[in-house]
Every structure is written in C-alpha cells, then in structure tokens.
C-alpha cells in the first residue's frame, strides 16, 4: 500500500535562542532513550523528529542551557 505522511504535535519543545547545538552540543539527542530527537543542521538547534515520547525528561534535565521543555503528549493531557 502507498504511504501517507501524517502531521503530529510533538511534546518536546526546544528554545532555539538557548540551544547550543551549533557549538557542538548533542546532550539531549544522546540521552533520549527512544532516540526521537535530532539536530537541525541548518537552524543549528535540536528538535523532536519522531512523535514517540515517553515524557521521561532526561533531555530537559540534562540540557546545559535549559533550552528543552518536555510537555505531556496531548493524548494524555
């Protein structure tokens, strides 16, 4: 069967102004147990690439600049 691309709201929000991915930081991407975060090389910041979040928070807690916020996924809220 052919595939469709779904849009989904994602629970993890990254503040581009605070994110220091451009300086070489990959902390949030490294610690995610589900590997759902990635670095946008053009914007120079991290973002949530896959909507597969356990809202466990290492990305937020370990971020050295406080750029990451984990929200509760909408379906649970």
């Amino acid at each position, binding site marked *: *069967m052919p595939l469709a691309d779904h849009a989904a709201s994602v629970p993890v929000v990254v503040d581009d102004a605070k994110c220091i991915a451009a300086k070489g930081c990959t902390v949030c991407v490294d610690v995610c147990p589900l590997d759902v975060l990635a670095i946008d090389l053009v914007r120079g910041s991290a973002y949530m690439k896959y909507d597969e979040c356990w809202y466990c928070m290492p990305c937020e807690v370990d971020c050295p600049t406080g750029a990451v916020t984990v*929200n509760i*996924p909408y379906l649970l809220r």
Partner: protein
Amino acid sequence: MSTPKTETLEADVLVIGGGTGGPMAAIRAKQANPNLRVVLLEKANVKRSGAISMGMDGLNNAVIPGYATPEQYVKEITIANDGIVHQQALMAYANGSYDMIRYLDSLDVKFEKDGAGDYAVRKVHHMGTYVLPMPQGHHVKKVLYRQLRRLRIGVINRYMATRLLTTPDGRIGGAIGVNTRTSEFLVIRARTVIMACGAAGRLGLPASGYLFGTYENAANCGDGHAMAYHAGAELANLECYQINPLIKDYNGPSCAYVTGPFGGYTANNKGARFIECDYWSGQMMLEFWRELQSGNGPVFLNMTHLAPETVGEIETILHSNERPSRGRFHAGRGTDYRHRMVEMHISEIGFCAGHSASGVWVDERARTSVPGLYAAGDMASVPHNYMLGAFVNGAIAGEEAARFCAEVDLPEPDPDAIAAEQERVLAPTRRTDGLTPHEVEYKTRRLVNDYLAPPKITAKMRIAQERFAEIRDDLNALVARDPHELMRALEVQSILDCADMAAAASLYRTESRWGFYHYRIDHPETDNDDWFCHTMLFKDSDGAMRHRKRAIDPYVVPVDATEMTAYQNLRIVPAEAAE
C-alpha cells in the same frame, strides 16, 4: 537503503542491555576477572537507558539485617506469588541484597539515612519492613555510568541486538546487532551472553491510546524475551502478566510505596478504603478491578488528609525521581494532592518480573536453559525483584559468566545464520510501500487489549491467536524508510512474538492464579493438584511454540497453609460483617 557494512567483534562476556542489571553484570564480570573482554551493548545510551533512566525513589525489597531476614523475605514473596516460585533464586537475591545496598552506597548512590547515618528503612510490604527511600535517587544512572568508565568497560550505544547466535550443540555463541542510526550490522562472537533487556512493556496499549505512553520505559518492548525464545531458551509463567495500578492517563506509578508510609492510601469514589495493603500483587489488582467494575469506581490515591508538610515531602520525592513529568501532568489538570484525590486506573498488560513473576527462566545462578546464556532484571523469572533485584541478579550473572568463560572457547559463528538474520532484519528497508511499523504495532497492541487482557476468556484468546497469525503474514509488507523506522519495525516483531507467547501461555494454564494476573473465566478456581508448577514455554526444534510443566523445587523456607492465604484477604470487611 543499500546493504550496510558488517563489523565483527569478539567478547568474553557480552551484556545486552545497559539499564540496571546490565551495567551491574558488566561491572561484576570485569571485577571478577579484569582480563576479560566485557562488552555492554545498549539500544539507547547507557547514560539514560532502561527502567530507571531518571532514577528511582526507593527500594521496595531491601533485606536489611535488623529489619527483615532472608527467610522472611523468601516466605513473603512465595506467598505473594501463590507458591509458584523458585525459592532458591529468591534466597540468592535475599542473601545478596544487603551487600548490594552497601556496594551501591560505596559508589555514592544516595539512600535515605537518619540523623546518625543509619538506613531509614520503612514499612509498606504486607508483613515485613523492606522499604528504603531514596529521596535523591535521581543519580543512580550517573553512578553506574561512572563505574563503567572507571573500569573501562566497552560500551556500544545505539546498537539493537536482534538475535542471539548459538552453536550446533545448543550453546550460546554471541549476538547480532544493528545500529539504530545507520543500520550497520554488528556480529559479536562471545563466550557468554548476559541478557538484561528489561520488561516487555509495549505489549498492551495504554488507555490513552498513545503508543509510547506505557508504564515501562517504552524502549523495553520485549526484545529480550523474543531473542531468548528464538535461541531456544525456556520462558516461565508468562501467563502471570504484569498489571499495575497507575495514575489514569499519565500511566506512571501511583506510588503507594512512597505515599503509604506517609499515610496515603487507595480509595474508591466514596473516599473509602477498599484494600488494606497497597503492596502490588495479583490479588490486590483483582480487588482494584472489581472496585472499578462495581460502580464504586474510579479508584483514587488519597493524600488529602495529610499534613501540608508531609504532602510537600511526598511531592519532592515523586516529582524529582523515576517519573518527574508527573508533577507537570497533575499541574495541567489542576490536581493538588492536598485538595484532590488522584484518579488511578489499571495499566496495560506486560511481562515484567520486576513487578510480577514471569520471564526468561533463570535459576539461582542467573542461568537460563541455554548454556552460557544468563538473564537478569525485569526480563528474567525471579519474581518481584524490582531495581535492587536487577542489581543483585545482574551481579550474580556477571560473576557466573566470568567463571563460565574459563571453561569454554570462543564459538565460530555460523555464516548462514548471520546471512539469514541480515536478510530478515533488512527486509523492511527493501520495500518502498507497504505497512508502517506504527500501524502494525498499534493493531497488534489493540488486539492484545481486546482479547488478552484479563479477565481471560478462552474463546477470545483463540481469536487473538488467529488475528496474530494474520499480522505475522503482514510482517512481509513492513516498510522502513530510515534506520530509526527499521528499529521500530524490528521492535514490532518482538512485540508480536510476545503477544503470541502471552496468548499461548495463558491458554496452557487451565486454572486461575495470581489474582487478576491470570484470572480465567472458564477456569475460575485455583487447581493445585494439576497446576502447582511452573509452566515453561519454548520453541521446539521444528520451530513450533511448545509448553511443559516444571515441578517446583523443594522449598528452602517452608510455608504453612494458613500463611499461604495472607494475600487472599485484602478486601476490607465492613465493620458489621467483621463482628
């Protein structure tokens, strides 16, 4: 994707899973013999992987001299599991419990201590004192990681093990893994393998409908159970599901362990208690379920009667360890423990020995039925072992594997088996259209909820098996567009294997046992004459799923008949009826 390259690595001890038991197994194997090549393979990153990625708020099963004896502990867990336990393994855990606490303490894991520096043990368990809080338990993973670095244990992150390798004579030979970001292949030849892959936590679908809103870390999807099965290992008592009372929708633990000693309790919609012991057991879950069915639901966790200072203390613990997003969830709904009870619900089903009893069969030396293969933690069959059990049994596995290494040579891998596995793994990458891992997973898990969740009904479970067989055909249409999707495509195959095992195991045991965990409508009574035994599930040489009974080994701690019923008397008797 083009065919990715394959690397080969040799190890004396290969540990699969870097959560709780895995790192400890690696540490102990290395300490037992620093010359051993110990490799730790992790699907995520050891820094923050597994059930305790954010830490843990306490030990539920600490056997500390002066508070509980190993004999008391073994007896209690035997009773809580309706007698179906391998007591030797419980005793091995209980005997190692205190030494492990002191070892963790020496590594700077923070346990609660009183003003004189002694452990501040508290009571929650039905009959003994086994709770040791860890108000600063968010550091556990950091401590483990530090120790792995100090011992220079080889860590390979972001590789998912897909199958175990075995020798023609049935011994373990290593494992095959695939990189979750590049799909590169890794063949690890190993003298011994320790599996610590966690629970099968993505089996049922949470009530929220969000695939990853599971009780267990969603990375723990039963890879270990499936790999062990395909390698010919036996799995024990899989019909004894994990089902837990959780915060409705949030799906995190309601934490009677934390709130109980402070005076919190489970209540119905009248605010009244209906169970007196919040210790998680199948019988407790049965009462919980009945209350939900009775019209007295929903069920709540009540802390509204507690002093504000006490609630503040509880919040500090609950909102900084294990599942810290809990505070955010409550805030979103305007729930303040001081003024409003917290709505609770029944979790999805899973396999998890940490909280219930089922998993890959291991004996008191963490040995599976495959020589050279060990298992520990949530995926191994030692009941109610929680975080501390994962550490203790992981340590046992590490020491045993180190010893076994000296007796065996490094097996030659079978190139045909590797090629076949490569073909199976990469198949979804060779398609451009078909079915996505998400939809196959959703459907499988939705059917698990519809047909396998208790109360268990024979006719429904048979339908489940038919539907699972159809999905198994659908796996030939799975499509993965990138390495990440390939990881999910492989995971859904493990999930389907576990779903099949849950159905088959539940049908095999034709009685009811463990309260709600194996509550069969067609066989409502406990039948000790026929079923006072372990049930073992395994893959036959013809590739079919088979079962056998395994007799319970003679108890090392006798339990008399009156004690055996202690957990069957959990419902509060109304005052007039009690007289």
